[in-house]
Protein backbone atom coordinates (compact mmCIF):
# COMPACT_ATOMS: atom_id res chain seq x y z
CA UNK A 1 0.00 0.00 0.00
CA UNK A 2 1.85 3.02 -1.21
CA UNK A 3 0.98 6.18 -3.08
CA UNK A 4 2.16 5.98 -6.67
CA UNK A 5 2.03 8.77 -9.22
CA UNK A 6 1.32 7.92 -12.83
CA UNK A 7 0.87 10.14 -15.86
CA UNK A 8 -2.44 9.67 -17.65
CA UNK A 9 -2.58 10.01 -21.42
CA UNK A 10 -6.35 9.65 -21.71
CA UNK A 11 -7.70 8.84 -25.16
CA UNK A 12 -9.25 11.87 -26.89
CA UNK A 13 -8.08 14.31 -24.21
CA UNK A 14 -5.60 17.10 -25.07
CA UNK A 15 -3.06 16.95 -22.24
CA UNK A 16 -1.08 14.58 -20.02
CA UNK A 17 -2.18 14.67 -16.37
CA UNK A 18 -0.72 13.62 -13.03
CA UNK A 19 -2.94 10.96 -11.43
CA UNK A 20 -2.11 9.68 -7.96
CA UNK A 21 -2.96 5.99 -7.54
CA UNK A 22 -1.91 3.25 -5.14
CA UNK A 23 0.46 0.31 -5.71
CA UNK A 24 -2.37 -2.03 -4.72
CA UNK A 25 -4.79 -0.60 -7.29
CA UNK A 26 -5.82 -2.81 -10.19
CA UNK A 27 -5.64 -1.48 -13.71
CA UNK A 28 -9.43 -1.06 -13.69
CA UNK A 29 -9.04 1.16 -10.62
CA UNK A 30 -6.20 3.09 -12.26
CA UNK A 31 -8.36 3.65 -15.34
CA UNK A 32 -11.22 4.89 -13.17
CA UNK A 33 -8.91 7.26 -11.31
CA UNK A 34 -7.65 8.66 -14.62
CA UNK A 35 -11.18 8.85 -16.04
CA UNK A 36 -12.23 11.14 -13.20
CA UNK A 37 -9.94 13.83 -14.64
CA UNK A 38 -10.95 13.45 -18.29
CA UNK A 39 -14.41 11.90 -18.83
CA UNK A 40 -17.15 14.43 -18.42
CA UNK A 41 -14.58 17.22 -18.37
CA UNK A 42 -13.15 17.19 -21.88
CA UNK A 43 -13.87 13.68 -23.10
CA UNK A 44 -17.35 12.31 -23.74
CA UNK A 45 -18.24 9.13 -21.88
CA UNK A 46 -18.66 5.92 -23.86
CA UNK A 47 -20.79 3.67 -21.66
CA UNK A 48 -20.59 0.69 -24.04
CA UNK A 49 -16.79 0.59 -23.82
CA UNK A 50 -14.34 -0.62 -21.22
CA UNK A 51 -11.26 1.41 -20.25
CA UNK A 52 -7.98 -0.44 -20.74
CA UNK A 53 -4.51 0.59 -19.67
CA UNK A 54 -1.22 0.15 -21.50
CA UNK A 55 2.26 1.58 -21.29
CA UNK A 56 2.48 4.48 -23.72
CA UNK A 57 2.78 3.10 -27.21
CA UNK A 58 2.61 -0.57 -26.20
CA UNK A 59 0.64 -3.02 -28.34
CA UNK A 60 -0.93 -4.91 -25.46
CA UNK A 61 -3.04 -3.78 -22.55
CA UNK A 62 -2.25 -4.74 -18.99
CA UNK A 63 -4.66 -7.37 -17.61
CA UNK A 64 -7.57 -5.60 -15.96
CA UNK A 65 -6.94 -7.20 -12.58
CA UNK A 66 -3.18 -6.67 -12.58
CA UNK A 67 -1.96 -4.52 -9.71
CA UNK A 68 0.27 -1.50 -10.23
CA UNK A 69 2.89 -3.14 -8.00
CA UNK A 70 3.15 -6.08 -10.43
CA UNK A 71 3.07 -4.08 -13.63
CA UNK A 72 6.68 -2.96 -13.79
CA UNK A 73 5.55 0.64 -14.11
CA UNK A 74 7.87 3.31 -12.74
CA UNK A 75 6.70 6.34 -10.81
CA UNK A 76 5.48 9.07 -13.23
CA UNK A 77 5.61 6.71 -16.17
CA UNK A 78 3.05 7.61 -18.84
CA UNK A 79 0.20 5.21 -19.53
CA UNK A 80 -2.43 5.37 -22.25
CA UNK A 81 -6.04 4.88 -21.15
CA UNK A 82 -8.01 3.58 -24.10
CA UNK A 83 -11.69 2.91 -24.81
CA UNK A 84 -11.88 -0.77 -25.81
CA UNK A 85 -14.55 -3.34 -26.51
CA UNK A 86 -13.30 -5.63 -23.74
Amino acid at each position, binding site marked *: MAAFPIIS*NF*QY*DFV*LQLVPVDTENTMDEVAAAAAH*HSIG*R*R*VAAQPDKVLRVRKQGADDFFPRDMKVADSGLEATE*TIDIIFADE
Partner: protein
Amino acid sequence: MAMIERTEWYDLLRATNWTPKYVTEDELFPEEMSGHRDIPIEDWETYDEPYKVTYPEYVETQREKDAGAYSVKAALARDKFLDRADPGWISILQAHYGALALAEYGAIVGEARMARFSKAPGNRNMATFGMMDETRHAQLQLFFPHANCKLDRKWDWAQKALHTNEWAALAGRHFFEDIIHSRDAISMGIMLTFAFETGFTNMQFLGLAADAAEAGDHTFSSLISSIQTDESRHAQQGGPMVKLLVEKGKKADAQRLIDIAFWRSWKLFSVLTGPMMDYYTPMEYRSQSFKEFMEEWIVGQFERSILDLGLDKPWYWDEFLRSLDETHHGMHLGVWYWRPTVWWNPRAGVNPDEREWLEEKYPGWNDTFGKCWDVIIDNLVNDKVELTLPETLPLVCNMSNIPIVGAPGNGWNVKDYPLKYKDRLYHFGSEPDRWCFEQEPERYADHLSFVDRFLAGMIEPADLSGALKYMGLAPGEIGEDAYGLAWADIYKEMAHKKVS
Protein backbone atom coordinates in the same frame (compact mmCIF):
# COMPACT_ATOMS: atom_id res chain seq x y z
CA MET B 1 30.50 74.81 -36.89
CA ALA B 2 30.37 72.28 -39.73
CA MET B 3 30.20 68.66 -38.57
CA ILE B 4 32.07 65.87 -40.32
CA GLU B 5 29.78 63.23 -41.84
CA ARG B 6 29.30 60.27 -39.50
CA THR B 7 30.50 57.81 -42.14
CA GLU B 8 33.91 59.49 -42.08
CA TRP B 9 34.63 58.85 -38.43
CA TYR B 10 32.36 56.00 -37.30
CA ASP B 11 34.86 53.20 -37.93
CA LEU B 12 37.56 55.09 -36.06
CA LEU B 13 35.27 55.81 -33.14
CA ARG B 14 34.26 52.24 -32.56
CA ALA B 15 37.80 50.77 -32.82
CA THR B 16 38.20 50.55 -29.07
CA ASN B 17 40.38 47.45 -28.70
CA TRP B 18 43.87 47.91 -27.24
CA THR B 19 46.78 45.63 -26.37
CA PRO B 20 46.59 45.08 -22.65
CA LYS B 21 49.86 45.61 -20.73
CA TYR B 22 48.96 44.78 -17.15
CA VAL B 23 46.83 41.69 -17.71
CA THR B 24 46.74 39.04 -20.41
CA GLU B 25 44.18 39.05 -23.18
CA ASP B 26 42.66 35.93 -21.64
CA GLU B 27 42.32 37.66 -18.28
CA LEU B 28 40.64 40.62 -19.97
CA PHE B 29 38.34 38.39 -22.00
CA PRO B 30 37.84 35.10 -20.15
CA GLU B 31 36.30 32.53 -22.48
CA GLU B 32 33.51 31.69 -20.06
CA MET B 33 32.21 35.27 -20.23
CA SER B 34 33.41 36.29 -23.66
CA GLY B 35 32.80 33.20 -25.80
CA HIS B 36 35.48 34.28 -28.29
CA ARG B 37 36.09 30.61 -29.13
CA ASP B 38 39.82 31.27 -29.78
CA ILE B 39 38.97 33.29 -32.84
CA PRO B 40 41.75 35.94 -33.07
CA ILE B 41 40.85 39.40 -31.87
CA GLU B 42 41.71 40.82 -35.32
CA ASP B 43 38.88 38.72 -36.72
CA TRP B 44 36.46 39.92 -34.05
CA GLU B 45 37.40 43.42 -35.16
CA THR B 46 35.85 42.71 -38.57
CA TYR B 47 32.45 42.33 -36.88
CA ASP B 48 30.25 44.91 -38.56
CA GLU B 49 26.88 45.79 -37.12
CA PRO B 50 24.31 46.47 -39.87
CA TYR B 51 22.41 49.09 -37.93
CA LYS B 52 24.67 51.92 -36.76
CA VAL B 53 24.00 54.80 -34.42
CA THR B 54 26.09 57.34 -32.53
CA TYR B 55 25.45 58.54 -29.03
CA PRO B 56 24.09 61.98 -30.01
CA GLU B 57 21.82 60.33 -32.59
CA TYR B 58 20.70 57.79 -30.01
CA VAL B 59 19.82 60.43 -27.44
CA GLU B 60 17.88 62.51 -29.95
CA THR B 61 15.99 59.59 -31.47
CA GLN B 62 15.15 57.93 -28.19
CA ARG B 63 13.97 61.20 -26.71
CA GLU B 64 11.57 61.61 -29.62
CA LYS B 65 10.31 58.06 -29.22
CA ASP B 66 9.70 58.50 -25.52
CA ALA B 67 7.99 61.83 -26.07
CA GLY B 68 5.70 60.00 -28.49
CA ALA B 69 4.92 56.99 -26.31
CA TYR B 70 4.38 58.95 -23.09
CA SER B 71 2.35 61.70 -24.73
CA VAL B 72 0.02 59.23 -26.44
CA LYS B 73 -0.49 57.62 -23.04
CA ALA B 74 -1.17 60.97 -21.38
CA ALA B 75 -3.50 62.13 -24.12
CA LEU B 76 -5.51 58.93 -24.08
CA ALA B 77 -5.63 58.62 -20.29
CA ARG B 78 -8.82 60.66 -20.25
CA ASP B 79 -10.30 58.45 -22.95
CA LYS B 80 -10.44 55.67 -20.32
CA PHE B 81 -10.17 52.98 -22.97
CA LEU B 82 -9.69 50.34 -20.32
CA ASP B 83 -13.07 51.05 -18.74
CA ARG B 84 -14.81 49.92 -21.91
CA ALA B 85 -12.25 47.48 -23.33
CA ASP B 86 -13.24 43.90 -23.88
CA PRO B 87 -12.19 41.82 -20.83
CA GLY B 88 -10.22 39.56 -23.17
CA TRP B 89 -8.19 42.57 -24.26
CA ILE B 90 -7.48 43.48 -20.62
CA SER B 91 -6.23 39.93 -20.11
CA ILE B 92 -3.84 40.27 -23.04
CA LEU B 93 -2.35 43.38 -21.47
CA GLN B 94 -2.05 41.87 -18.00
CA ALA B 95 -0.48 38.68 -19.33
CA HIS B 96 1.89 40.63 -21.60
CA TYR B 97 3.18 43.00 -18.94
CA GLY B 98 3.62 40.28 -16.34
CA ALA B 99 5.50 37.97 -18.65
CA LEU B 100 7.74 40.62 -20.16
CA ALA B 101 8.43 43.64 -17.95
CA LEU B 102 11.10 42.05 -15.79
CA ALA B 103 12.37 39.91 -18.67
CA GLU B 104 13.28 43.22 -20.32
CA TYR B 105 15.20 44.10 -17.18
CA GLY B 106 16.97 40.76 -17.43
CA ALA B 107 17.94 41.56 -21.00
CA ILE B 108 19.85 44.60 -19.73
CA VAL B 109 22.20 42.15 -18.04
CA GLY B 110 22.63 40.20 -21.26
CA GLU B 111 23.44 43.35 -23.22
CA ALA B 112 25.85 44.34 -20.45
CA ARG B 113 27.74 41.08 -20.84
CA MET B 114 28.28 41.79 -24.52
CA ALA B 115 29.19 45.42 -23.75
CA ARG B 116 31.99 44.27 -21.46
CA PHE B 117 33.14 40.88 -22.70
CA SER B 118 32.68 40.76 -26.47
CA LYS B 119 36.01 40.96 -28.34
CA ALA B 120 34.19 42.77 -31.14
CA PRO B 121 34.26 46.53 -30.60
CA GLY B 122 31.23 47.07 -32.81
CA ASN B 123 29.31 44.60 -30.67
CA ARG B 124 30.42 46.30 -27.42
CA ASN B 125 29.35 49.65 -28.81
CA MET B 126 25.91 48.46 -29.93
CA ALA B 127 25.37 46.53 -26.73
CA THR B 128 25.88 49.70 -24.72
CA PHE B 129 22.93 51.16 -26.56
CA GLY B 130 21.17 47.82 -26.15
CA MET B 131 21.49 48.15 -22.37
CA MET B 132 19.82 51.53 -22.55
CA ASP B 133 17.11 50.16 -24.84
CA GLU B 134 16.24 47.37 -22.44
CA THR B 135 16.25 49.80 -19.52
CA ARG B 136 13.71 51.83 -21.47
CA HIS B 137 11.61 48.73 -22.16
CA ALA B 138 11.58 47.66 -18.54
CA GLN B 139 10.65 51.14 -17.39
CA LEU B 140 7.89 51.63 -19.97
CA GLN B 141 6.35 48.24 -19.33
CA LEU B 142 6.30 48.84 -15.59
CA PHE B 143 5.16 52.46 -15.75
CA PHE B 144 2.28 51.95 -18.18
CA PRO B 145 0.48 49.17 -16.29
CA HIS B 146 1.24 50.74 -12.91
CA ALA B 147 -1.40 53.43 -13.51
CA ASN B 148 -3.98 50.66 -13.61
CA CYS B 149 -3.14 49.07 -10.28
CA LYS B 150 -5.95 51.09 -8.74
CA LEU B 151 -8.40 49.25 -11.02
CA ASP B 152 -7.42 45.67 -10.31
CA ARG B 153 -4.68 43.72 -8.49
CA LYS B 154 -3.75 41.77 -11.60
CA TRP B 155 -2.07 44.87 -13.04
CA ASP B 156 0.45 44.64 -10.20
CA TRP B 157 1.70 41.39 -11.73
CA ALA B 158 3.63 43.48 -14.25
CA GLN B 159 6.13 43.91 -11.43
CA LYS B 160 5.33 40.81 -9.42
CA ALA B 161 5.05 37.90 -11.87
CA LEU B 162 8.68 37.01 -12.45
CA HIS B 163 9.38 37.14 -8.72
CA THR B 164 6.81 34.39 -8.08
CA ASN B 165 6.66 30.63 -8.61
CA GLU B 166 3.53 30.90 -10.73
CA TRP B 167 4.00 28.20 -13.36
CA ALA B 168 4.17 30.49 -16.40
CA ALA B 169 6.69 32.64 -14.52
CA LEU B 170 8.75 29.49 -13.89
CA ALA B 171 8.62 28.73 -17.60
CA GLY B 172 9.67 32.28 -18.47
CA ARG B 173 12.57 32.29 -16.03
CA HIS B 174 13.80 28.88 -17.17
CA PHE B 175 13.83 30.11 -20.76
CA PHE B 176 15.47 33.49 -20.15
CA GLU B 177 18.00 32.08 -17.70
CA ASP B 178 18.96 29.50 -20.29
CA ILE B 179 19.42 31.85 -23.20
CA ILE B 180 20.60 35.04 -21.45
CA HIS B 181 21.88 34.60 -17.92
CA SER B 182 24.00 31.50 -18.06
CA ARG B 183 25.89 31.83 -21.34
CA ASP B 184 28.95 33.62 -22.70
CA ALA B 185 28.44 36.91 -24.54
CA ILE B 186 28.53 35.41 -28.04
CA SER B 187 26.26 32.44 -27.30
CA MET B 188 23.83 34.83 -25.66
CA GLY B 189 24.11 37.22 -28.57
CA ILE B 190 23.12 34.49 -30.98
CA MET B 191 20.36 33.00 -28.82
CA LEU B 192 18.77 36.20 -27.57
CA THR B 193 19.36 38.79 -30.26
CA PHE B 194 19.30 36.58 -33.32
CA ALA B 195 16.94 33.72 -32.54
CA PHE B 196 14.55 35.28 -30.04
CA GLU B 197 14.58 38.97 -30.92
CA THR B 198 14.77 38.95 -34.71
CA GLY B 199 12.64 35.82 -34.88
CA PHE B 200 9.86 36.01 -32.39
CA THR B 201 9.50 39.37 -30.75
CA ASN B 202 8.07 40.81 -33.97
CA MET B 203 5.08 38.54 -33.34
CA GLN B 204 4.31 39.96 -29.93
CA PHE B 205 5.32 43.56 -30.58
CA LEU B 206 4.22 44.13 -34.16
CA GLY B 207 1.62 41.45 -34.85
CA LEU B 208 -0.14 42.25 -31.60
CA ALA B 209 0.28 46.00 -32.25
CA ALA B 210 -1.78 45.53 -35.40
CA ASP B 211 -4.55 43.86 -33.40
CA ALA B 212 -4.26 46.59 -30.75
CA ALA B 213 -4.78 49.31 -33.35
CA GLU B 214 -7.86 47.43 -34.62
CA ALA B 215 -9.15 47.19 -31.07
CA GLY B 216 -8.68 50.92 -30.55
CA ASP B 217 -5.98 50.51 -27.90
CA HIS B 218 -3.68 53.17 -29.31
CA THR B 219 -1.76 53.57 -26.06
CA PHE B 220 -0.63 49.95 -26.19
CA SER B 221 -0.24 49.85 -29.96
CA SER B 222 2.00 52.91 -29.99
CA LEU B 223 3.95 51.64 -26.97
CA ILE B 224 4.85 48.25 -28.32
CA SER B 225 5.60 49.42 -31.85
CA SER B 226 7.89 52.08 -30.35
CA ILE B 227 9.62 49.39 -28.27
CA GLN B 228 10.10 47.30 -31.38
CA THR B 229 11.97 50.06 -33.20
CA ASP B 230 14.69 49.73 -30.55
CA GLU B 231 14.56 45.97 -30.91
CA SER B 232 15.17 46.17 -34.65
CA ARG B 233 18.44 47.87 -33.91
CA HIS B 234 19.88 45.83 -31.06
CA ALA B 235 18.58 42.56 -32.44
CA GLN B 236 20.99 43.00 -35.34
CA GLN B 237 23.95 42.18 -33.11
CA GLY B 238 23.59 38.43 -33.48
CA GLY B 239 23.72 38.22 -37.26
CA PRO B 240 27.37 39.30 -37.65
CA MET B 241 28.33 36.90 -34.86
CA VAL B 242 26.78 34.02 -36.79
CA LYS B 243 28.53 35.19 -39.95
CA LEU B 244 31.94 35.20 -38.24
CA LEU B 245 31.42 31.81 -36.63
CA VAL B 246 30.44 30.29 -39.98
CA GLU B 247 33.50 31.88 -41.67
CA LYS B 248 35.76 30.49 -38.96
CA GLY B 249 34.56 26.92 -39.30
CA LYS B 250 32.20 27.01 -36.33
CA LYS B 251 28.92 26.67 -38.20
CA ALA B 252 27.80 23.65 -36.15
CA ASP B 253 28.21 25.66 -32.95
CA ALA B 254 26.10 28.55 -34.26
CA GLN B 255 23.53 26.15 -35.72
CA ARG B 256 23.09 24.33 -32.42
CA LEU B 257 22.61 27.55 -30.47
CA ILE B 258 19.97 28.75 -32.89
CA ASP B 259 18.21 25.38 -33.01
CA ILE B 260 17.91 25.39 -29.21
CA ALA B 261 16.86 29.03 -28.86
CA PHE B 262 14.38 28.92 -31.72
CA TRP B 263 12.49 25.89 -30.41
CA ARG B 264 12.45 27.24 -26.87
CA SER B 265 11.20 30.61 -28.15
CA TRP B 266 8.49 28.88 -30.16
CA LYS B 267 7.21 27.05 -27.10
CA LEU B 268 7.03 30.27 -25.06
CA PHE B 269 5.12 32.00 -27.83
CA SER B 270 2.73 29.08 -28.26
CA VAL B 271 1.45 29.56 -24.70
CA LEU B 272 1.53 33.36 -24.63
CA THR B 273 1.00 34.89 -28.06
CA GLY B 274 -1.02 32.07 -29.62
CA PRO B 275 -3.95 32.29 -27.20
CA MET B 276 -3.80 36.10 -27.26
CA MET B 277 -4.15 36.32 -31.01
CA ASP B 278 -6.63 33.51 -31.70
CA TYR B 279 -8.81 33.55 -28.59
CA TYR B 280 -8.40 36.63 -26.37
CA THR B 281 -8.54 39.26 -29.11
CA PRO B 282 -12.21 39.75 -30.01
CA MET B 283 -12.78 38.34 -33.46
CA GLU B 284 -13.52 41.64 -35.16
CA TYR B 285 -10.05 42.94 -34.21
CA ARG B 286 -8.05 39.97 -35.43
CA SER B 287 -5.97 41.17 -38.39
CA GLN B 288 -4.60 37.71 -38.98
CA SER B 289 -4.58 34.36 -37.22
CA PHE B 290 -1.61 33.37 -35.06
CA LYS B 291 -0.55 30.90 -37.73
CA GLU B 292 -0.75 33.59 -40.41
CA PHE B 293 1.38 35.97 -38.32
CA MET B 294 3.88 33.16 -37.67
CA GLU B 295 4.04 32.37 -41.37
CA GLU B 296 4.68 36.02 -42.19
CA TRP B 297 7.26 36.84 -39.53
CA ILE B 298 8.91 33.53 -38.81
CA VAL B 299 8.48 31.19 -41.72
CA GLY B 300 8.82 33.97 -44.26
CA GLN B 301 11.36 36.41 -42.91
CA PHE B 302 13.33 34.53 -40.29
CA GLU B 303 13.80 31.43 -42.40
CA ARG B 304 15.29 33.61 -45.12
CA SER B 305 17.70 35.32 -42.73
CA ILE B 306 18.98 31.97 -41.42
CA LEU B 307 19.69 30.76 -44.93
CA ASP B 308 21.29 34.08 -45.90
CA LEU B 309 23.80 33.68 -43.09
CA GLY B 310 24.88 30.30 -44.37
CA LEU B 311 23.03 28.23 -41.82
CA ASP B 312 20.54 25.45 -42.39
CA LYS B 313 16.91 25.40 -41.32
CA PRO B 314 16.68 23.77 -37.88
CA TRP B 315 16.50 19.98 -38.14
CA TYR B 316 12.98 19.95 -36.71
CA TRP B 317 11.58 22.50 -39.21
CA ASP B 318 8.87 20.16 -40.55
CA GLU B 319 7.67 19.39 -37.02
CA PHE B 320 7.66 23.12 -36.26
CA LEU B 321 5.50 23.84 -39.32
CA ARG B 322 3.12 21.01 -38.42
CA SER B 323 2.76 22.24 -34.86
CA LEU B 324 1.63 25.72 -36.00
CA ASP B 325 -1.80 24.17 -36.51
CA GLU B 326 -1.91 22.53 -33.12
CA THR B 327 0.24 23.49 -30.14
CA HIS B 328 -1.20 26.88 -29.22
CA HIS B 329 -4.77 25.51 -29.29
CA GLY B 330 -3.77 23.00 -26.63
CA MET B 331 -1.94 25.66 -24.63
CA HIS B 332 -5.03 27.88 -24.73
CA LEU B 333 -7.35 25.07 -23.66
CA GLY B 334 -4.96 24.25 -20.84
CA VAL B 335 -4.61 27.82 -19.63
CA TRP B 336 -8.39 28.27 -19.75
CA TYR B 337 -9.15 25.02 -17.93
CA TRP B 338 -6.44 25.70 -15.31
CA ARG B 339 -7.41 29.39 -15.19
CA PRO B 340 -7.13 29.78 -11.40
CA THR B 341 -3.38 29.27 -11.78
CA VAL B 342 -2.70 32.34 -13.96
CA TRP B 343 -2.66 36.01 -13.08
CA TRP B 344 -4.98 37.09 -15.87
CA ASN B 345 -8.56 36.13 -16.80
CA PRO B 346 -8.47 33.81 -19.81
CA ARG B 347 -11.08 34.46 -22.47
CA ALA B 348 -12.52 31.22 -23.80
CA GLY B 349 -13.09 32.53 -27.33
CA VAL B 350 -15.30 29.66 -28.50
CA ASN B 351 -18.72 31.11 -29.18
CA PRO B 352 -20.35 29.79 -32.41
CA ASP B 353 -18.95 32.57 -34.66
CA GLU B 354 -15.52 32.13 -33.20
CA ARG B 355 -15.60 28.38 -33.73
CA GLU B 356 -16.43 29.03 -37.37
CA TRP B 357 -13.44 31.38 -37.61
CA LEU B 358 -11.20 28.79 -35.96
CA GLU B 359 -12.44 26.11 -38.36
CA GLU B 360 -11.75 28.40 -41.32
CA LYS B 361 -8.23 29.23 -40.14
CA TYR B 362 -7.43 25.74 -38.85
CA PRO B 363 -9.48 23.16 -40.81
CA GLY B 364 -10.35 20.27 -38.54
CA TRP B 365 -10.42 22.36 -35.35
CA ASN B 366 -14.01 21.35 -34.50
CA ASP B 367 -13.18 17.67 -34.92
CA THR B 368 -10.24 17.90 -32.49
CA PHE B 369 -10.14 20.79 -30.02
CA GLY B 370 -13.82 21.44 -30.64
CA LYS B 371 -14.62 18.02 -29.15
CA CYS B 372 -13.11 19.04 -25.79
CA TRP B 373 -14.89 22.37 -25.86
CA ASP B 374 -18.17 20.55 -26.62
CA VAL B 375 -17.89 18.73 -23.29
CA ILE B 376 -16.99 21.94 -21.47
CA ILE B 377 -19.88 23.82 -23.09
CA ASP B 378 -22.23 20.98 -22.22
CA ASN B 379 -21.18 21.30 -18.58
CA LEU B 380 -21.74 25.05 -18.60
CA VAL B 381 -25.17 24.67 -20.24
CA ASN B 382 -26.08 22.23 -17.46
CA ASP B 383 -24.60 24.45 -14.73
CA LYS B 384 -21.86 21.97 -13.85
CA VAL B 385 -19.19 24.62 -13.47
CA GLU B 386 -17.16 22.43 -11.09
CA LEU B 387 -16.41 20.07 -13.99
CA THR B 388 -14.83 22.96 -15.90
CA LEU B 389 -12.19 23.39 -13.19
CA PRO B 390 -9.22 21.12 -12.48
CA GLU B 391 -8.66 18.59 -9.71
CA THR B 392 -5.15 17.62 -10.68
CA LEU B 393 -2.06 19.01 -12.36
CA PRO B 394 -1.24 18.76 -16.04
CA LEU B 395 2.18 17.26 -16.72
CA VAL B 396 4.57 20.00 -17.74
CA CYS B 397 7.60 19.51 -19.95
CA ASN B 398 10.96 19.43 -18.17
CA MET B 399 12.34 21.81 -20.80
CA SER B 400 9.61 24.33 -21.63
CA ASN B 401 7.86 23.95 -18.25
CA ILE B 402 4.49 24.28 -19.95
CA PRO B 403 1.87 21.54 -20.38
CA ILE B 404 2.52 18.53 -22.59
CA VAL B 405 -0.33 18.83 -25.11
CA GLY B 406 -1.36 17.53 -28.50
CA ALA B 407 -4.42 17.18 -30.66
CA PRO B 408 -7.46 15.70 -28.91
CA GLY B 409 -10.76 14.32 -30.20
CA ASN B 410 -10.71 12.57 -33.54
CA GLY B 411 -7.11 13.56 -34.21
CA TRP B 412 -5.81 12.34 -30.84
CA ASN B 413 -2.00 12.28 -30.89
CA VAL B 414 -0.90 13.33 -27.38
CA LYS B 415 2.43 11.82 -26.41
CA ASP B 416 5.06 11.98 -23.71
CA TYR B 417 8.73 12.10 -24.79
CA PRO B 418 10.44 10.59 -21.76
CA LEU B 419 14.14 10.36 -20.94
CA LYS B 420 15.96 8.54 -18.16
CA TYR B 421 19.03 10.52 -17.13
CA LYS B 422 21.09 9.47 -14.11
CA ASP B 423 18.22 7.45 -12.62
CA ARG B 424 15.67 10.25 -12.90
CA LEU B 425 12.75 10.11 -15.33
CA TYR B 426 12.25 13.34 -17.26
CA HIS B 427 9.28 14.17 -19.49
CA PHE B 428 9.25 16.36 -22.58
CA GLY B 429 6.50 17.75 -24.76
CA SER B 430 8.21 17.02 -28.07
CA GLU B 431 11.26 15.50 -29.72
CA PRO B 432 12.96 18.93 -30.03
CA ASP B 433 12.34 19.71 -26.33
CA ARG B 434 14.04 16.45 -25.40
CA TRP B 435 16.84 17.15 -27.88
CA CYS B 436 17.48 20.54 -26.22
CA PHE B 437 17.98 18.79 -22.88
CA GLU B 438 20.30 16.23 -24.44
CA GLN B 439 22.61 18.95 -25.80
CA GLU B 440 23.78 19.82 -22.29
CA PRO B 441 22.00 17.66 -19.71
CA GLU B 442 23.96 18.98 -16.73
CA ARG B 443 22.71 22.47 -17.51
CA TYR B 444 19.11 21.39 -16.91
CA ALA B 445 19.24 18.19 -14.87
CA ASP B 446 18.82 19.67 -11.39
CA HIS B 447 15.83 21.83 -12.23
CA LEU B 448 12.50 20.77 -10.74
CA SER B 449 9.38 21.49 -12.75
CA PHE B 450 6.21 22.54 -10.94
CA VAL B 451 5.03 18.92 -11.03
CA ASP B 452 8.39 17.67 -9.71
CA ARG B 453 8.07 20.13 -6.83
CA PHE B 454 4.53 18.95 -6.12
CA LEU B 455 5.68 15.31 -6.03
CA ALA B 456 8.62 16.27 -3.81
CA GLY B 457 6.20 17.67 -1.24
CA MET B 458 7.24 21.27 -1.80
CA ILE B 459 3.65 22.41 -2.24
CA GLU B 460 1.67 22.40 0.98
CA PRO B 461 -1.06 21.48 1.28
CA ALA B 462 -0.83 19.24 -1.78
CA ASP B 463 -3.97 20.65 -3.35
CA LEU B 464 -5.14 23.67 -5.36
CA SER B 465 -5.04 26.00 -2.35
CA GLY B 466 -1.44 24.96 -1.64
CA ALA B 467 -0.55 25.39 -5.31
CA LEU B 468 -2.05 28.89 -5.40
CA LYS B 469 -0.18 29.82 -2.24
CA TYR B 470 3.08 28.45 -3.67
CA MET B 471 2.49 30.46 -6.82
CA GLY B 472 1.80 33.70 -4.94
CA LEU B 473 -1.74 34.03 -6.29
CA ALA B 474 -4.07 35.74 -3.82
CA PRO B 475 -7.81 36.48 -4.14
CA GLY B 476 -8.20 39.21 -6.73
CA GLU B 477 -5.24 37.79 -8.62
CA ILE B 478 -6.48 34.25 -9.21
CA GLY B 479 -7.64 33.87 -12.81
CA GLU B 480 -11.31 33.49 -13.73
CA ASP B 481 -13.14 33.31 -17.02
CA ALA B 482 -12.91 36.76 -18.61
CA TYR B 483 -16.68 37.00 -18.98
CA GLY B 484 -17.63 35.21 -15.77
CA LEU B 485 -18.81 32.35 -18.03
CA ALA B 486 -21.54 34.57 -19.54
CA TRP B 487 -20.32 33.59 -23.02
CA ALA B 488 -22.00 30.20 -22.49
CA ASP B 489 -25.43 31.88 -22.41
CA ILE B 490 -25.68 31.66 -26.17
CA TYR B 491 -25.27 27.90 -25.92
CA LYS B 492 -27.91 27.75 -23.16
CA GLU B 493 -30.32 29.56 -25.47
CA MET B 494 -29.52 27.18 -28.31
CA ALA B 495 -30.11 24.18 -26.03
CA HIS B 496 -33.37 25.67 -24.78
CA LYS B 497 -34.60 26.26 -28.33
CA LYS B 498 -33.78 22.67 -29.24
CA VAL B 499 -35.78 21.31 -26.33
CA SER B 500 -38.80 23.50 -26.88
